[in-house]
């Protein structure tokens, strides 16, 4: 094309490659928030926050919800939400108990059955959302009750001990530290790497972004948006069950109420991590860092001598502020789009 053909020339400095700040602004912002919070906690409770034990506690407990948050990031990027994962955590772990503890099957059969249960739950969610276009916010509340109810019926509302003597391999996999380092965080790092690759270096990941950004455009260009959404929900289902097992093994016991209380932490981690509530943008690295910030809020508030009731307040603030910020950014992008700049 000749010069005269197009006078599409740079306007202002928009032509410059996006700066590090622009490209990774949200992640850097989250890291900044995390550092500021950490400094605040160190000043408020120096004895607690200069002791290695608090960090070990973070490393053991944060992955119990943080791993689900990593997968939930995919669903939120597609423009959907899954509120049923706490129930899936319980139902999948119940499946393990039914097969391995009550059924007498080897532990690995129980593990496979549990993960498959999570996949089926995710598939059901995805199918209802993608194929029937039911709003995910509504349908996953419904399936959440359904999965929890099924678990309670199957287990008769009773728990199951999961001791190291009964399931040494499960404890070796999910509880025993590796060279003194909490295995829970090692799992989270491994899943972070795998999911980063999945989101940023595979066709599925690319289609997750495109589906969430503009589903109609993605479909016109040959992206199977329904299939992409179903896969994202399956991912959440499988990792929810993994976290159900992780937390049950951590507590040596499967409680029928497993998963309750993890909803807020997980969703807060995704939104604080910079994933757009409108879909089309997000980062698993941001979610990873945000998970540890959320994990620290709980312990930090108590350690700093503040009443534990303030924890909920802090979570609420985190969600509200991060969603408001995302909305402002999104509006700015839309305004740029409407004006062509």
């Amino acid at each position, binding site marked *: 094309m000749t010069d005269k*053909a197009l*006078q599409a020339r740079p306007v202002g400095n928009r032509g410059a490659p996006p700066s590090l700040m622009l490209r990774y602004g949200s992640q850097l912002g989250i890291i900044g928030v995390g550092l500021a919070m950490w400094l605040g906690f160190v000043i408020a409770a120096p004895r607690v926050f200069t002791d290695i034990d608090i960090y070990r506690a973070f490393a053991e407990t944060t992955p119990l919800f943080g791993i689900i948050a990593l997968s939930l990031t995919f669903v939120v990027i597609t423009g959907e939400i899954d509120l049923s994962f706490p129930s899936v955590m319980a139902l999948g772990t119940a499946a393990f108990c039914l097969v391995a503890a009550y059924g007498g099957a080897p532990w690995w059969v129980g593990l496979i059955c549990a993960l498959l249960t999570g996949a089926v739950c995710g598939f059901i969610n995805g199918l209802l959302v993608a194929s029937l276009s039911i709003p995910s916010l509504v349908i996953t509340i419904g399936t959440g009750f359904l999965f929890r109810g099924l678990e309670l019926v199957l287990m008769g509302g009773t728990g199951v001990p999961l001791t190291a003597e009964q399931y040494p391999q499960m404890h070796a996999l999910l509880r025993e530290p590796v060279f003194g380092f909490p295995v829970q965080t090692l799992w989270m790092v491994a899943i972070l790497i795998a999911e980063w690759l999945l989101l940023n270096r595979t066709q599925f990941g690319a289609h997750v972004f495109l589906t969430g950004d503009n589903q109609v455009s993605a479909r016109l*260009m040959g992206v199977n948006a329904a299939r992409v959404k179903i896969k994202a929900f399956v991912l959440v289902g499988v990792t929810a069950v993994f976290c159900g097992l992780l937390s049950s093994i951590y507590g040596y016991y499967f409680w029928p109420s497993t998963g309750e209380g993890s909803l807020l932490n997980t969703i807060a981690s995704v939104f604080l991590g910079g994933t757009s509530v409108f879909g089309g943008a997000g980062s698993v690295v941001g979610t990873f860092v945000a998970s540890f910030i959320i994990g620290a809020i709980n312990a930090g508030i108590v350690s700093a001598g503040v009443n534990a009731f303030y924890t909920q307040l802090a979570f609420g603030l985190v969600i509200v502020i991060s969603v408001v910020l995302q909305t402002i950014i999104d509006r700015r992008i839309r305004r740029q789009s409407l004006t062509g700049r």
Partner: protein
Amino acid sequence: MGRRMKGSGAMTAAATVSVGETPVIELKNVSKTFGEVRSLANVNFRVDRREIVGLLGDNGAGKSTLIKVVMGFYSPDAGGEIYFRGKRVDDWSVARARKLGIETVYQERALCEKQPIWRNMFMGRELRTRLGLLDVERMRAECARLMSEHMGFTSAAVHPNNVVATMSGGEKQGVAITRALYFEAELVILDEPTMGLSLSETKKTLDFVRHIKEVGRSAIFIDHNIFNIYPVVDRLYVLDRGKVAGVFSRADITMDALIERLYHVARTGTMELPQ
């Protein structure tokens, strides 16, 4: 990915049209009926290689139906025939049309505004490494090359990492058209590409349309505005009430004469002016 261009050379090697060359696509005696309504009636239509064909007509004239038949969205009623490069195709579908190299640049451009330009350029047909992972660096590099060679951007102008939302309407059309050409579209269908654009952006878009011909490809250009369509097309089909009311070579008719004919068609349903 097999049809993808290997380099800029393929895009710039414009072919010479020879007289009597096989059309890229040809519709013979095509009708399309929806219930009681006949949207197309015995339409004969063709697009030659390296030719830009315009489609004009009022609302309900049959433009959209005709285009959807070409795209493979609708199959013609019995008796209609579709030929691609001279060969009759019976199992005409969207997938088949796309495989043969018919790409559509939609009115809304089918772009994802929050995504970088490179991701939009390769939307749905991402380049991958031998391991099956996305070849992000190659997509960025290819995108920069395409933007430089075919959209008139220097590397310092607009970076492939910039999100599409920062581009103007005309530039977005440029991305959509360049994307179609990159994947070796033989025929690009432009569905009202200037809709909602300012004058300067419309000019940019029309330059992109001319570029399709420069690189040896063909296009069907649908627009309501005769002032946009006339300067860039080689031939014009005027549709009225599902029929081809007239076919003009741009060389044979002035814009004023064409406008007069269009008024006449709208009033009488016939193209022929009274003597």
